[in-house]
Protein backbone atom coordinates (compact mmCIF):
# COMPACT_ATOMS: atom_id res chain seq x y z
CA UNK A 1 0.00 0.00 0.00
CA UNK A 2 1.51 3.27 -1.06
CA UNK A 3 1.73 6.21 1.23
CA UNK A 4 -1.26 8.44 0.72
CA UNK A 5 -3.61 5.58 -0.07
CA UNK A 6 -4.82 5.77 3.51
CA UNK A 7 -6.64 8.99 2.74
CA UNK A 8 -8.95 7.38 0.20
CA UNK A 9 -11.62 6.04 2.60
CA UNK A 10 -11.91 9.41 4.32
CA UNK A 11 -13.88 10.71 1.35
CA UNK A 12 -16.66 8.38 2.42
CA UNK A 13 -16.08 8.31 6.16
CA UNK A 14 -16.07 12.06 6.82
CA UNK A 15 -19.43 12.98 5.25
CA UNK A 16 -21.03 9.80 6.58
CA UNK A 17 -19.93 10.60 10.12
CA UNK A 18 -21.05 14.19 9.61
CA UNK A 19 -24.49 13.05 8.49
CA UNK A 20 -24.78 10.81 11.52
CA UNK A 21 -23.76 13.51 13.98
CA UNK A 22 -26.11 15.98 12.32
CA UNK A 23 -28.98 13.56 12.59
CA UNK A 24 -28.31 13.08 16.29
CA UNK A 25 -27.56 16.61 17.38
CA UNK A 26 -29.12 18.75 14.65
CA UNK A 27 -32.24 19.54 16.67
CA UNK A 28 -30.54 20.35 19.94
CA UNK A 29 -27.71 22.62 18.88
CA UNK A 30 -28.68 25.77 17.02
CA UNK A 31 -26.67 26.47 13.89
CA UNK A 32 -24.57 23.34 14.30
CA UNK A 33 -25.71 21.45 11.18
CA UNK A 34 -24.85 24.25 8.79
CA UNK A 35 -21.49 24.85 10.40
CA UNK A 36 -20.67 21.15 10.37
CA UNK A 37 -21.61 20.85 6.70
CA UNK A 38 -19.48 23.84 5.74
CA UNK A 39 -16.46 22.59 7.68
CA UNK A 40 -16.82 19.06 6.36
CA UNK A 41 -17.17 20.06 2.73
CA UNK A 42 -14.25 22.45 3.06
CA UNK A 43 -12.10 19.67 4.52
CA UNK A 44 -13.16 17.36 1.69
CA UNK A 45 -12.32 19.97 -0.91
CA UNK A 46 -8.83 20.36 0.52
CA UNK A 47 -8.45 16.62 0.74
CA UNK A 48 -9.51 16.14 -2.86
CA UNK A 49 -7.03 18.72 -4.11
CA UNK A 50 -4.33 16.97 -2.12
CA UNK A 51 -5.43 13.65 -3.56
CA UNK A 52 -5.19 15.06 -7.08
CA UNK A 53 -1.66 16.20 -6.31
CA UNK A 54 -0.59 12.85 -4.92
CA UNK A 55 -2.06 11.02 -7.90
CA UNK A 56 -0.08 13.32 -10.17
CA UNK A 57 3.09 12.61 -8.21
CA UNK A 58 2.89 8.85 -7.63
CA UNK A 59 0.19 7.50 -9.92
CA UNK A 60 -2.91 5.55 -8.96
CA UNK A 61 -3.52 4.57 -5.36
CA UNK A 62 -5.46 1.64 -4.03
CA UNK A 63 -6.88 1.15 -0.57
CA UNK A 64 -7.93 -2.37 0.37
CA UNK A 65 -10.80 -2.06 2.84
CA UNK A 66 -10.15 -4.02 6.02
CA UNK A 67 -6.76 -5.16 4.72
CA UNK A 68 -8.21 -7.73 2.31
CA UNK A 69 -6.32 -7.66 -0.92
CA UNK A 70 -8.26 -7.39 -4.17
CA UNK A 71 -9.70 -9.11 -6.12
CA UNK A 72 -11.13 -10.89 -3.08
CA UNK A 73 -11.59 -7.91 -0.79
CA UNK A 74 -13.30 -4.60 -1.37
CA UNK A 75 -11.01 -1.99 -2.88
CA UNK A 76 -11.16 1.76 -3.10
CA UNK A 77 -9.31 3.24 -6.02
CA UNK A 78 -7.85 6.64 -6.61
CA UNK A 79 -6.61 7.37 -10.11
CA UNK A 80 -6.55 10.38 -12.39
CA UNK A 81 -10.23 10.25 -13.26
CA UNK A 82 -11.26 9.64 -9.67
CA UNK A 83 -9.33 12.56 -8.29
CA UNK A 84 -10.66 14.79 -11.08
CA UNK A 85 -14.24 13.90 -10.19
CA UNK A 86 -13.56 14.25 -6.48
CA UNK A 87 -12.23 17.77 -6.94
CA UNK A 88 -15.29 18.71 -9.00
CA UNK A 89 -17.83 17.21 -6.63
CA UNK A 90 -16.32 18.52 -3.44
CA UNK A 91 -15.74 22.03 -4.73
CA UNK A 92 -19.36 22.28 -5.77
CA UNK A 93 -20.49 20.76 -2.49
CA UNK A 94 -18.52 23.34 -0.53
CA UNK A 95 -20.01 26.24 -2.47
CA UNK A 96 -23.48 24.82 -1.97
CA UNK A 97 -23.02 24.19 1.75
CA UNK A 98 -21.98 27.82 2.24
CA UNK A 99 -24.96 28.97 0.21
CA UNK A 100 -27.52 26.74 1.90
CA UNK A 101 -26.86 28.12 5.36
CA UNK A 102 -28.96 31.21 4.66
CA UNK A 103 -31.13 29.89 1.87
CA UNK A 104 -32.56 27.08 3.94
CA UNK A 105 -33.82 29.51 6.58
CA UNK A 106 -37.15 29.41 4.79
CA UNK A 107 -37.58 25.71 5.43
CA UNK A 108 -38.03 23.92 8.71
CA UNK A 109 -35.69 21.23 10.02
CA UNK A 110 -32.39 22.43 8.66
CA UNK A 111 -30.64 19.67 10.54
CA UNK A 112 -32.44 17.10 8.46
CA UNK A 113 -31.55 18.93 5.27
CA UNK A 114 -27.85 18.90 6.02
CA UNK A 115 -28.01 15.28 7.11
CA UNK A 116 -29.46 14.29 3.76
CA UNK A 117 -27.07 16.59 1.95
CA UNK A 118 -24.04 14.98 3.54
CA UNK A 119 -25.49 11.53 2.93
CA UNK A 120 -25.84 12.36 -0.74
CA UNK A 121 -22.25 13.57 -0.78
CA UNK A 122 -21.19 10.29 0.84
CA UNK A 123 -22.91 8.38 -1.91
CA UNK A 124 -21.33 10.41 -4.67
CA UNK A 125 -17.82 10.21 -3.27
CA UNK A 126 -18.40 6.51 -2.72
CA UNK A 127 -19.45 5.93 -6.32
CA UNK A 128 -16.34 7.72 -7.46
CA UNK A 129 -13.81 5.85 -5.33
CA UNK A 130 -15.51 2.43 -5.43
CA UNK A 131 -13.28 -0.19 -6.97
CA UNK A 132 -15.86 -2.90 -7.34
CA UNK A 133 -19.17 -3.04 -9.05
CA UNK A 134 -21.45 -3.91 -6.18
CA UNK A 135 -20.05 -1.21 -3.94
CA UNK A 136 -20.59 1.20 -6.75
CA UNK A 137 -24.23 0.12 -6.80
CA UNK A 138 -24.63 0.47 -3.04
CA UNK A 139 -23.20 3.99 -2.99
CA UNK A 140 -25.27 4.88 -6.02
CA UNK A 141 -28.38 3.91 -4.12
CA UNK A 142 -27.28 5.89 -1.06
CA UNK A 143 -26.91 9.00 -3.19
CA UNK A 144 -30.09 8.33 -5.13
CA UNK A 145 -32.36 7.64 -2.15
CA UNK A 146 -31.18 10.73 -0.31
CA UNK A 147 -31.70 12.79 -3.44
CA UNK A 148 -35.31 11.53 -3.78
CA UNK A 149 -35.89 12.67 -0.23
CA UNK A 150 -34.24 16.02 -0.89
CA UNK A 151 -36.37 16.71 -3.95
CA UNK A 152 -39.45 16.15 -1.80
CA UNK A 153 -38.04 18.40 0.92
CA UNK A 154 -40.61 21.15 0.53
CA UNK A 155 -43.47 18.60 0.85
CA UNK A 156 -45.76 20.70 -1.30
CA UNK A 157 -47.86 19.31 -4.14
CA UNK A 158 -45.29 19.85 -6.89
CA UNK A 159 -42.34 18.71 -4.87
CA UNK A 160 -44.05 15.45 -3.97
CA UNK A 161 -45.18 14.77 -7.49
CA UNK A 162 -41.74 15.41 -8.91
CA UNK A 163 -40.08 13.36 -6.20
CA UNK A 164 -42.38 10.42 -6.80
CA UNK A 165 -41.74 10.49 -10.51
CA UNK A 166 -38.01 10.80 -9.94
CA UNK A 167 -38.02 8.02 -7.34
CA UNK A 168 -39.91 5.58 -9.56
CA UNK A 169 -37.72 6.25 -12.58
CA UNK A 170 -34.57 6.21 -10.52
CA UNK A 171 -35.51 2.91 -8.92
CA UNK A 172 -36.23 1.33 -12.28
CA UNK A 173 -32.83 2.56 -13.46
CA UNK A 174 -31.20 0.99 -10.43
CA UNK A 175 -32.98 -2.28 -11.10
CA UNK A 176 -31.57 -2.39 -14.60
CA UNK A 177 -28.11 -1.69 -13.26
CA UNK A 178 -28.46 -4.42 -10.65
CA UNK A 179 -29.61 -6.92 -13.27
CA UNK A 180 -26.59 -5.99 -15.38
CA UNK A 181 -24.32 -6.54 -12.39
CA UNK A 182 -25.84 -9.95 -11.69
CA UNK A 183 -25.37 -11.07 -15.29
CA UNK A 184 -21.79 -9.85 -15.33
CA UNK A 185 -21.08 -11.60 -12.05
CA UNK A 186 -22.55 -14.81 -13.39
CA UNK A 187 -20.27 -14.56 -16.41
CA UNK A 188 -17.00 -13.50 -14.78
CA UNK A 189 -17.37 -14.65 -11.14
CA UNK A 190 -15.79 -11.48 -9.87
CA UNK A 191 -16.99 -8.08 -8.86
CA UNK A 192 -13.76 -6.14 -8.79
CA UNK A 193 -13.81 -3.70 -11.71
CA UNK A 194 -10.19 -4.20 -12.71
CA UNK A 195 -10.35 -7.94 -12.33
CA UNK A 196 -13.57 -8.08 -14.29
CA UNK A 197 -11.95 -6.23 -17.15
CA UNK A 198 -9.13 -8.78 -17.21
CA UNK A 199 -11.45 -11.78 -17.12
CA UNK A 200 -13.56 -10.36 -19.92
CA UNK A 201 -10.48 -9.70 -22.00
CA UNK A 202 -9.38 -13.30 -21.51
CA UNK A 203 -12.69 -14.99 -22.15
CA UNK A 204 -13.50 -12.95 -25.18
CA UNK A 205 -16.81 -11.46 -26.19
CA UNK A 206 -20.09 -13.16 -25.70
CA UNK A 207 -23.62 -12.20 -26.60
CA UNK A 208 -24.27 -11.65 -22.95
CA UNK A 209 -21.99 -8.61 -22.99
CA UNK A 210 -24.26 -6.91 -25.49
CA UNK A 211 -27.23 -7.42 -23.21
CA UNK A 212 -25.30 -6.16 -20.20
CA UNK A 213 -24.24 -3.10 -22.19
CA UNK A 214 -27.84 -2.30 -22.99
CA UNK A 215 -28.90 -2.75 -19.37
CA UNK A 216 -26.15 -0.44 -18.15
CA UNK A 217 -26.89 2.06 -20.87
CA UNK A 218 -30.54 2.24 -19.83
CA UNK A 219 -29.78 2.24 -16.11
CA UNK A 220 -27.07 4.85 -16.09
CA UNK A 221 -28.79 6.73 -18.89
CA UNK A 222 -31.76 7.15 -16.57
CA UNK A 223 -29.47 8.46 -13.86
CA UNK A 224 -27.68 10.79 -16.26
CA UNK A 225 -30.91 11.99 -17.91
CA UNK A 226 -29.91 11.27 -21.50
CA UNK A 227 -32.73 12.15 -23.83
CA UNK A 228 -35.05 9.21 -24.09
CA UNK A 229 -34.79 8.85 -20.31
CA UNK A 230 -34.75 12.51 -19.32
CA UNK A 231 -38.35 13.18 -18.36
CA UNK A 232 -37.80 13.12 -14.58
CA UNK A 233 -35.11 15.77 -14.66
CA UNK A 234 -36.98 19.00 -15.38
CA UNK A 235 -39.60 18.23 -12.74
CA UNK A 236 -37.15 17.16 -10.10
CA UNK A 237 -34.73 19.99 -10.73
CA UNK A 238 -37.30 22.73 -10.80
CA UNK A 239 -39.17 21.50 -7.72
CA UNK A 240 -36.23 20.88 -5.40
CA UNK A 241 -34.83 23.67 -3.20
CA UNK A 242 -32.30 25.68 -5.23
CA UNK A 243 -29.13 24.35 -3.58
CA UNK A 244 -30.34 20.83 -4.26
CA UNK A 245 -31.18 21.61 -7.88
CA UNK A 246 -27.64 22.88 -8.15
CA UNK A 247 -26.28 19.75 -6.53
CA UNK A 248 -28.41 17.45 -8.71
CA UNK A 249 -27.60 19.19 -11.91
CA UNK A 250 -24.05 20.13 -11.09
CA UNK A 251 -22.69 16.87 -9.84
CA UNK A 252 -25.24 14.14 -9.11
CA UNK A 253 -26.17 13.30 -12.69
CA UNK A 254 -22.48 13.40 -13.56
CA UNK A 255 -21.02 11.23 -10.86
CA UNK A 256 -23.90 8.73 -10.84
CA UNK A 257 -24.58 8.73 -14.53
CA UNK A 258 -21.71 9.87 -16.69
CA UNK A 259 -18.83 8.79 -14.49
CA UNK A 260 -20.20 5.33 -13.72
CA UNK A 261 -21.30 4.78 -17.32
CA UNK A 262 -17.93 5.58 -18.82
CA UNK A 263 -15.94 3.91 -16.08
CA UNK A 264 -17.75 0.67 -16.85
CA UNK A 265 -17.73 1.01 -20.61
CA UNK A 266 -14.12 2.04 -20.96
CA UNK A 267 -12.44 0.12 -18.20
CA UNK A 268 -14.54 -3.01 -17.84
CA UNK A 269 -16.57 -3.87 -20.90
CA UNK A 270 -14.26 -2.21 -23.35
CA UNK A 271 -15.48 0.39 -25.81
CA UNK A 272 -16.76 -1.03 -29.08
CA UNK A 273 -17.60 1.06 -32.16
CA UNK A 274 -21.20 -0.01 -31.67
CA UNK A 275 -21.46 1.36 -28.14
CA UNK A 276 -19.52 4.43 -29.10
CA UNK A 277 -21.86 5.29 -31.95
CA UNK A 278 -24.93 4.72 -29.76
CA UNK A 279 -23.49 7.04 -27.13
CA UNK A 280 -22.64 9.72 -29.66
CA UNK A 281 -26.12 9.53 -31.12
CA UNK A 282 -27.76 9.77 -27.68
CA UNK A 283 -25.44 12.62 -26.78
CA UNK A 284 -26.35 14.61 -29.84
CA UNK A 285 -30.03 13.85 -29.41
CA UNK A 286 -29.93 15.08 -25.80
CA UNK A 287 -28.05 18.16 -26.90
CA UNK A 288 -30.56 19.17 -29.56
CA UNK A 289 -33.79 18.21 -27.81
CA UNK A 290 -32.68 19.68 -24.49
CA UNK A 291 -31.82 22.99 -26.10
CA UNK A 292 -35.05 23.16 -28.11
CA UNK A 293 -37.22 22.39 -25.09
CA UNK A 294 -35.30 24.88 -22.97
CA UNK A 295 -35.99 27.68 -25.43
CA UNK A 296 -39.71 27.45 -24.84
CA UNK A 297 -39.64 27.63 -21.05
CA UNK A 298 -40.86 30.52 -18.95
CA UNK A 299 -39.90 29.07 -15.59
CA UNK A 300 -36.27 29.97 -14.90
CA UNK A 301 -35.33 26.75 -13.10
CA UNK A 302 -37.08 24.57 -15.66
CA UNK A 303 -35.15 26.32 -18.42
CA UNK A 304 -31.91 25.64 -16.56
CA UNK A 305 -32.90 22.00 -16.09
CA UNK A 306 -33.48 21.47 -19.81
CA UNK A 307 -30.23 23.20 -20.56
CA UNK A 308 -28.55 20.66 -18.25
CA UNK A 309 -29.91 17.88 -20.44
CA UNK A 310 -28.45 19.64 -23.42
CA UNK A 311 -25.04 20.22 -21.85
CA UNK A 312 -24.85 16.62 -20.63
CA UNK A 313 -25.27 15.75 -24.30
CA UNK A 314 -22.03 17.59 -25.07
CA UNK A 315 -20.19 15.64 -22.39
CA UNK A 316 -21.51 12.29 -23.64
CA UNK A 317 -20.71 13.19 -27.24
CA UNK A 318 -17.17 14.19 -26.29
CA UNK A 319 -16.38 11.15 -24.21
CA UNK A 320 -18.29 8.85 -26.53
CA UNK A 321 -16.05 9.85 -29.43
CA UNK A 322 -13.34 7.82 -27.78
CA UNK A 323 -10.45 9.81 -29.18
CA UNK A 324 -8.04 11.33 -26.63
CA UNK A 325 -9.03 14.84 -27.66
CA UNK A 326 -12.73 14.02 -27.40
CA UNK A 327 -12.35 12.54 -23.93
CA UNK A 328 -10.31 15.53 -22.83
CA UNK A 329 -12.92 17.93 -24.16
CA UNK A 330 -15.76 15.95 -22.61
CA UNK A 331 -14.15 15.88 -19.19
CA UNK A 332 -13.25 19.53 -19.37
CA UNK A 333 -16.81 20.34 -20.30
CA UNK A 334 -18.03 18.21 -17.41
CA UNK A 335 -15.94 20.30 -15.03
CA UNK A 336 -17.06 23.58 -16.57
CA UNK A 337 -20.67 22.53 -16.62
CA UNK A 338 -20.54 21.62 -12.94
CA UNK A 339 -19.28 25.09 -12.14
CA UNK A 340 -21.49 27.27 -14.28
CA UNK A 341 -24.66 25.26 -13.91
CA UNK A 342 -24.28 25.21 -10.14
CA UNK A 343 -23.79 28.95 -10.26
CA UNK A 344 -26.84 29.46 -12.46
CA UNK A 345 -29.04 27.40 -10.17
CA UNK A 346 -27.73 29.26 -7.13
CA UNK A 347 -28.53 32.52 -8.89
CA UNK A 348 -32.02 31.37 -9.69
CA UNK A 349 -32.31 30.47 -6.03
CA UNK A 350 -31.15 33.95 -5.08
CA UNK A 351 -33.75 35.50 -7.35
CA UNK A 352 -36.41 33.28 -5.86
CA UNK A 353 -35.19 34.09 -2.36
CA UNK A 354 -35.40 37.81 -2.99
CA UNK A 355 -38.57 38.01 -5.08
CA UNK A 356 -40.40 34.73 -4.50
CA UNK A 357 -40.85 34.37 -8.23
CA UNK A 358 -39.33 32.18 -10.93
CA UNK A 359 -41.35 33.30 -13.94
CA UNK A 360 -39.08 34.97 -16.48
CA UNK A 361 -41.84 37.15 -17.88
CA UNK A 362 -42.50 38.82 -14.55
CA UNK A 363 -38.90 39.65 -13.73
CA UNK A 364 -36.92 42.51 -15.17
CA UNK A 365 -34.23 44.97 -14.22
CA UNK A 366 -33.12 42.91 -11.28
CA UNK A 367 -29.44 43.61 -12.02
CA UNK A 368 -29.86 47.09 -10.57
CA UNK A 369 -31.34 45.84 -7.34
CA UNK A 370 -29.19 42.73 -7.03
CA UNK A 371 -25.81 43.63 -8.50
CA UNK A 372 -23.93 40.56 -7.27
CA UNK A 373 -26.51 38.09 -8.54
CA UNK A 374 -26.75 39.94 -11.84
CA UNK A 375 -23.01 40.00 -12.40
CA UNK A 376 -22.36 36.38 -11.44
CA UNK A 377 -25.29 35.27 -13.55
CA UNK A 378 -23.82 37.17 -16.48
CA UNK A 379 -20.48 35.41 -16.01
CA UNK A 380 -22.13 32.01 -15.87
CA UNK A 381 -24.35 32.77 -18.86
CA UNK A 382 -21.52 33.81 -21.12
CA UNK A 383 -19.52 30.83 -19.98
CA UNK A 384 -22.31 28.34 -20.78
CA UNK A 385 -22.98 30.05 -24.08
CA UNK A 386 -19.34 29.67 -25.06
CA UNK A 387 -18.00 33.21 -25.36
CA UNK A 388 -14.24 32.98 -25.95
CA UNK A 389 -12.28 33.83 -22.82
CA UNK A 390 -14.31 31.59 -20.56
CA UNK A 391 -13.93 27.89 -19.88
CA UNK A 392 -17.13 26.90 -21.64
CA UNK A 393 -15.77 28.09 -24.96
CA UNK A 394 -12.62 26.00 -24.78
CA UNK A 395 -14.36 22.81 -23.82
CA UNK A 396 -16.98 23.15 -26.55
CA UNK A 397 -14.27 23.99 -29.06
CA UNK A 398 -12.34 20.87 -28.06
CA UNK A 399 -15.41 18.68 -28.45
CA UNK A 400 -16.26 20.11 -31.85
CA UNK A 401 -12.66 19.82 -33.01
CA UNK A 402 -12.50 16.23 -31.81
CA UNK A 403 -15.71 15.41 -33.69
CA UNK A 404 -14.30 16.93 -36.87
CA UNK A 405 -11.02 15.08 -36.43
CA UNK A 406 -12.79 11.77 -35.96
CA UNK A 407 -14.72 12.44 -39.16
CA UNK A 408 -18.14 13.08 -37.64
CA UNK A 409 -18.90 16.35 -39.38
CA UNK A 410 -22.64 16.05 -38.80
CA UNK A 411 -22.25 15.77 -35.05
CA UNK A 412 -19.82 18.68 -35.03
CA UNK A 413 -22.32 20.79 -36.93
CA UNK A 414 -25.08 19.97 -34.45
CA UNK A 415 -22.79 20.78 -31.56
CA UNK A 416 -22.02 24.19 -33.04
CA UNK A 417 -25.68 24.84 -33.76
CA UNK A 418 -26.75 23.95 -30.24
CA UNK A 419 -24.12 26.29 -28.91
CA UNK A 420 -25.87 29.11 -30.79
CA UNK A 421 -29.23 28.00 -29.37
CA UNK A 422 -27.72 28.09 -25.88
CA UNK A 423 -26.54 31.61 -26.50
CA UNK A 424 -30.05 32.62 -27.56
CA UNK A 425 -31.54 30.98 -24.50
CA UNK A 426 -29.28 32.74 -22.03
CA UNK A 427 -29.47 36.04 -23.83
CA UNK A 428 -33.19 35.82 -23.18
CA UNK A 429 -32.66 35.01 -19.51
CA UNK A 430 -30.34 37.97 -19.05
CA UNK A 431 -32.61 40.34 -20.93
CA UNK A 432 -35.82 39.32 -19.22
CA UNK A 433 -34.56 38.86 -15.70
CA UNK A 434 -31.66 41.16 -15.10
CA UNK A 435 -31.45 43.93 -17.69
CA UNK A 436 -34.07 46.26 -19.04
CA UNK A 437 -36.84 48.09 -17.24
CA UNK A 438 -37.21 47.54 -13.55
CA UNK A 439 -40.51 45.88 -12.88
CA UNK A 440 -42.52 48.03 -10.45
CA UNK A 441 -43.22 45.11 -8.18
CA UNK A 442 -39.58 44.58 -7.32
CA UNK A 443 -38.84 48.11 -6.10
CA UNK A 444 -38.29 46.88 -2.56
CA UNK A 445 -36.14 43.88 -3.51
CA UNK A 446 -32.83 43.62 -1.70
CA UNK A 447 -29.68 41.65 -2.41
CA UNK A 448 -29.37 38.24 -0.74
CA UNK A 449 -27.34 37.70 2.48
CA UNK A 450 -23.55 37.84 2.47
CA UNK A 451 -22.71 34.14 2.61
CA UNK A 452 -24.90 33.42 -0.40
CA UNK A 453 -23.13 36.23 -2.25
CA UNK A 454 -19.74 34.87 -1.23
CA UNK A 455 -20.55 31.45 -2.57
CA UNK A 456 -21.80 32.84 -5.88
CA UNK A 457 -18.77 35.09 -6.29
CA UNK A 458 -16.44 32.18 -5.57
CA UNK A 459 -18.06 30.04 -8.26
CA UNK A 460 -18.02 32.94 -10.71
CA UNK A 461 -14.28 33.28 -10.19
CA UNK A 462 -13.83 29.59 -10.88
CA UNK A 463 -15.88 30.04 -14.07
CA UNK A 464 -13.73 32.92 -15.21
CA UNK A 465 -10.45 31.21 -14.55
CA UNK A 466 -11.35 27.66 -15.52
CA UNK A 467 -10.11 28.50 -19.01
CA UNK A 468 -6.54 28.31 -17.76
CA UNK A 469 -6.96 24.63 -16.94
CA UNK A 470 -6.47 23.94 -20.62
CA UNK A 471 -3.21 25.88 -20.80
CA UNK A 472 -0.08 23.77 -21.26
CA UNK A 473 1.47 22.84 -17.95
CA UNK A 474 -1.68 22.86 -15.91
CA UNK A 475 -3.44 20.64 -18.40
CA UNK A 476 -0.89 17.86 -17.97
CA UNK A 477 -1.33 17.89 -14.24
CA UNK A 478 -5.07 17.66 -14.06
CA UNK A 479 -7.07 16.93 -17.18
CA UNK A 480 -4.61 14.61 -18.90
CA UNK A 481 -4.39 12.46 -15.80
CA UNK A 482 -8.12 12.10 -15.87
CA UNK A 483 -8.49 11.28 -19.53
CA UNK A 484 -5.52 8.90 -19.36
CA UNK A 485 -7.44 6.60 -17.08
CA UNK A 486 -10.07 6.27 -19.81
CA UNK A 487 -8.08 5.72 -22.93
CA UNK A 488 -6.00 3.24 -21.01
CA UNK A 489 -9.10 1.12 -21.53
CA UNK A 490 -8.77 -2.47 -20.40
CA UNK A 491 -5.24 -1.79 -19.19
CA UNK A 492 -6.91 -0.24 -16.17
CA UNK A 493 -5.83 -3.16 -14.02
CA UNK A 494 -2.15 -2.74 -14.85
CA UNK A 495 -2.15 0.82 -13.61
CA UNK A 496 -3.20 -0.24 -10.15
CA UNK A 497 -0.46 -1.24 -7.77
CA UNK A 498 -0.41 -4.84 -6.65
CA UNK A 499 -2.99 -5.92 -9.17
CA UNK A 500 -1.28 -6.71 -12.42
CA UNK A 501 -2.44 -9.44 -14.80
CA UNK A 502 -2.64 -12.76 -13.03
Amino acid at each position, binding site marked *: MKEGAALVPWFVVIPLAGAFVNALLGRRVQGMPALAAVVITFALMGLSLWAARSVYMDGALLYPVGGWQPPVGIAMVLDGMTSFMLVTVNTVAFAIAVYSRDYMERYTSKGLFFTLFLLMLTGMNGVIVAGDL*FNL*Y*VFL*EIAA*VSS*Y*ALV*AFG*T*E*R*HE*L*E*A*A*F*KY*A*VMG*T*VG*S*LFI*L*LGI*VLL*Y*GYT*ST*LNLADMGLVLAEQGKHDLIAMVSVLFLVGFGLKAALVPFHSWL*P*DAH*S*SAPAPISAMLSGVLIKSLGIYALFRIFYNVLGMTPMVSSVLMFLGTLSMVIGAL*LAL*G*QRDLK*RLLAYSSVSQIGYVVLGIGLGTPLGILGGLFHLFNHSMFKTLLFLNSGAVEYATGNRDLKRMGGLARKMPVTGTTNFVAAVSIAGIPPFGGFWSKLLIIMAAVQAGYLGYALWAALVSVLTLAMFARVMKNAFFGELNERWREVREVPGLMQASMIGLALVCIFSGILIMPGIKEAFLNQASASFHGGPRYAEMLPGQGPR
Partner: protein
Amino acid sequence: MLCLVLFCVGIYGILKNRNIIKIIVGITIAEFAINLFFILVAYRRDGRSPLFSPDETISPMVDPLPQALVLTSIVIGLATTALLVALAMRLHGKYGTYDIARIKELRG
Protein backbone atom coordinates in the same frame (compact mmCIF):
# COMPACT_ATOMS: atom_id res chain seq x y z
CA MET B 1 -36.92 -18.27 -16.47
CA LEU B 2 -39.34 -17.60 -13.66
CA CYS B 3 -37.16 -14.65 -12.71
CA LEU B 4 -37.41 -13.19 -16.17
CA VAL B 5 -41.18 -13.56 -16.12
CA LEU B 6 -41.35 -11.97 -12.69
CA PHE B 7 -39.12 -9.12 -13.78
CA CYS B 8 -41.31 -8.49 -16.79
CA VAL B 9 -44.42 -8.63 -14.64
CA GLY B 10 -42.89 -6.02 -12.36
CA ILE B 11 -41.89 -3.68 -15.17
CA TYR B 12 -45.28 -4.13 -16.81
CA GLY B 13 -46.90 -3.28 -13.52
CA ILE B 14 -44.91 -0.09 -13.26
CA LEU B 15 -45.73 1.00 -16.77
CA LYS B 16 -49.35 -0.03 -17.01
CA ASN B 17 -50.84 0.87 -13.67
CA ARG B 18 -52.17 4.25 -12.78
CA ASN B 19 -52.44 3.55 -9.11
CA ILE B 20 -49.41 4.67 -7.13
CA ILE B 21 -49.59 1.75 -4.70
CA LYS B 22 -49.68 -0.73 -7.57
CA ILE B 23 -46.63 0.92 -9.11
CA ILE B 24 -44.78 0.44 -5.85
CA VAL B 25 -45.84 -3.21 -5.77
CA GLY B 26 -44.55 -3.56 -9.33
CA ILE B 27 -41.19 -2.17 -8.32
CA THR B 28 -40.99 -4.59 -5.42
CA ILE B 29 -41.80 -7.56 -7.65
CA ALA B 30 -39.14 -6.62 -10.17
CA GLU B 31 -36.63 -6.12 -7.38
CA PHE B 32 -37.28 -9.51 -5.85
CA ALA B 33 -37.05 -11.14 -9.25
CA ILE B 34 -33.51 -9.83 -9.51
CA ASN B 35 -32.66 -11.00 -6.01
CA LEU B 36 -33.94 -14.47 -6.83
CA PHE B 37 -31.94 -14.48 -10.03
CA PHE B 38 -28.84 -13.51 -8.08
CA ILE B 39 -29.28 -16.53 -5.79
CA LEU B 40 -29.81 -18.75 -8.82
CA VAL B 41 -26.58 -17.55 -10.36
CA ALA B 42 -24.81 -18.70 -7.23
CA TYR B 43 -26.40 -22.17 -7.23
CA ARG B 44 -24.21 -25.18 -7.84
CA ARG B 45 -25.61 -28.61 -8.56
CA ASP B 46 -25.92 -30.63 -5.35
CA GLY B 47 -24.48 -27.72 -3.43
CA ARG B 48 -24.87 -27.40 0.29
CA SER B 49 -25.13 -24.26 2.33
CA PRO B 50 -21.83 -22.41 2.56
CA LEU B 51 -20.89 -23.05 6.19
CA PHE B 52 -17.42 -23.99 7.26
CA SER B 53 -16.68 -26.22 10.20
CA PRO B 54 -13.45 -28.07 10.94
CA ASP B 55 -14.82 -31.61 10.74
CA GLU B 56 -16.63 -31.13 7.43
CA THR B 57 -15.52 -32.91 4.31
CA ILE B 58 -14.94 -30.78 1.28
CA SER B 59 -17.96 -30.97 -0.97
CA PRO B 60 -19.45 -28.65 -3.54
CA MET B 61 -21.18 -25.71 -1.98
CA VAL B 62 -23.11 -22.81 -3.36
CA ASP B 63 -21.29 -19.57 -3.97
CA PRO B 64 -21.64 -17.53 -0.75
CA LEU B 65 -20.82 -14.10 -2.15
CA PRO B 66 -24.12 -13.41 -3.96
CA GLN B 67 -26.01 -14.35 -0.81
CA ALA B 68 -24.23 -11.57 1.03
CA LEU B 69 -24.92 -9.21 -1.83
CA VAL B 70 -28.60 -10.10 -1.95
CA LEU B 71 -28.84 -9.32 1.72
CA THR B 72 -27.50 -5.84 1.02
CA SER B 73 -29.76 -5.42 -1.95
CA ILE B 74 -32.81 -6.40 0.12
CA VAL B 75 -31.92 -3.71 2.63
CA ILE B 76 -31.58 -1.14 -0.15
CA GLY B 77 -34.92 -2.27 -1.53
CA LEU B 78 -36.48 -1.81 1.87
CA ALA B 79 -35.17 1.76 2.11
CA THR B 80 -36.43 2.62 -1.36
CA THR B 81 -39.84 1.08 -0.77
CA ALA B 82 -40.20 2.84 2.57
CA LEU B 83 -39.40 6.17 0.96
CA LEU B 84 -41.80 5.54 -1.93
CA VAL B 85 -44.61 4.60 0.42
CA ALA B 86 -43.96 7.68 2.52
CA LEU B 87 -44.12 9.82 -0.62
CA ALA B 88 -47.32 8.07 -1.67
CA MET B 89 -48.90 8.84 1.70
CA ARG B 90 -47.99 12.50 1.46
CA LEU B 91 -49.26 12.62 -2.12
CA HIS B 92 -52.54 11.15 -1.03
CA GLY B 93 -52.72 13.76 1.70
CA LYS B 94 -52.23 16.60 -0.81
CA TYR B 95 -54.19 15.36 -3.79
CA GLY B 96 -56.69 13.04 -2.17
CA THR B 97 -56.15 10.37 -4.81
CA TYR B 98 -53.75 7.59 -5.74
CA ASP B 99 -54.43 7.94 -9.45
CA ILE B 100 -51.39 9.30 -11.28
CA ALA B 101 -53.52 10.46 -14.17
CA ARG B 102 -54.95 13.06 -11.82
CA ILE B 103 -51.62 14.00 -10.27
CA LYS B 104 -50.02 15.85 -13.12
CA GLU B 105 -49.67 19.49 -12.49
CA LEU B 106 -46.12 19.59 -13.78
CA ARG B 107 -46.04 19.89 -17.53
CA GLY B 108 -43.61 20.73 -20.28
